[in-house]
């Protein structure tokens, strides 16, 4: 007989940590983006996507609003805004 023992790969995605975001969230301006990928590299949640310039954005289902993407962006093309702000 077996009880809880092993977990399925990547199953954490069912845990929507976006709800943890209470104060601020990033806004990807997609104006001066040079596609340096730094935001994508630095995101602790690994929830940023993008390929070409000005295509980078994050998945708010998981984004915890830490602000590192905004901090690292060489073009200040990401800004942190109040959670409530509408796009």
């Amino acid at each position, binding site marked *: 007989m077996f009880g809880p023992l092993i977990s399925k790969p990547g199953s954490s995605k069912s845990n929507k*940590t976006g*709800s*943890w975001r*209470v104060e601020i969230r990033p806004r990807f301006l997609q104006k001066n983006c040079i596609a340096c990928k730094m935001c994508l590299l630095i995101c602790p949640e690994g929830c940023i996507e993008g390929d070409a310039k000005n295509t980078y954005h994050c998945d708010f289902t998981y984004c*915890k609003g830490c602000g590192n993407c905004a901090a690292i962006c060489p073009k200040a093309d990401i800004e942190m805004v109040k959670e*409530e702000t509408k796009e």
Partner: protein
Amino acid sequence: MKEIRIHARAGQGAITTASLLGYIYFLKGMYPYAVPHFGAARMGAPMNAFVRVDSKPIRLRSQIYEPDYVLIVDATLMRGFNCFSGLKDNGIAIINQREGVEIPKVNARQKVFLVPANDIALKTIGRPLGNTALLGAFAAATGEYELEFLVEAIKKRFPAGLQDPNIKAATQGYEFVKNSTKG
């Protein structure tokens, strides 16, 4: 015996709130038992704490499933799941108000108090830590204790510099409810 469940996110001081609330009862000469319900999650993750109090020492060690009161430190938690679950049908909920979060319907005999605790805290303490304001509101909403006990608790438990601001916050929380109820 009264049972209180506190909802917050790890890092929002649910435990301090629970122990402060317990301490108030202690000052009243009652026998509180306050205990956090730890998950393994980190800052920002939902968690809760319990306070159980009676006129004789508490022996029951289980979690609280049918609280007389719930104290919701972060309203956004209500998006996630039902903070009201098991609330006694004459139960009272004190919620740290926040725009854009709608309040679930409650039955006739249940009471819900929305308190702008963080705003109060910002004004009085300078940081959005609404806990003392919420405990003030709790006093007014439930009548469990007089404001004096809360004030004394704050004096005993907070470093000198933080006492007056928190007492202010507590008092404003208390008055906010008092005013909202009368009339």
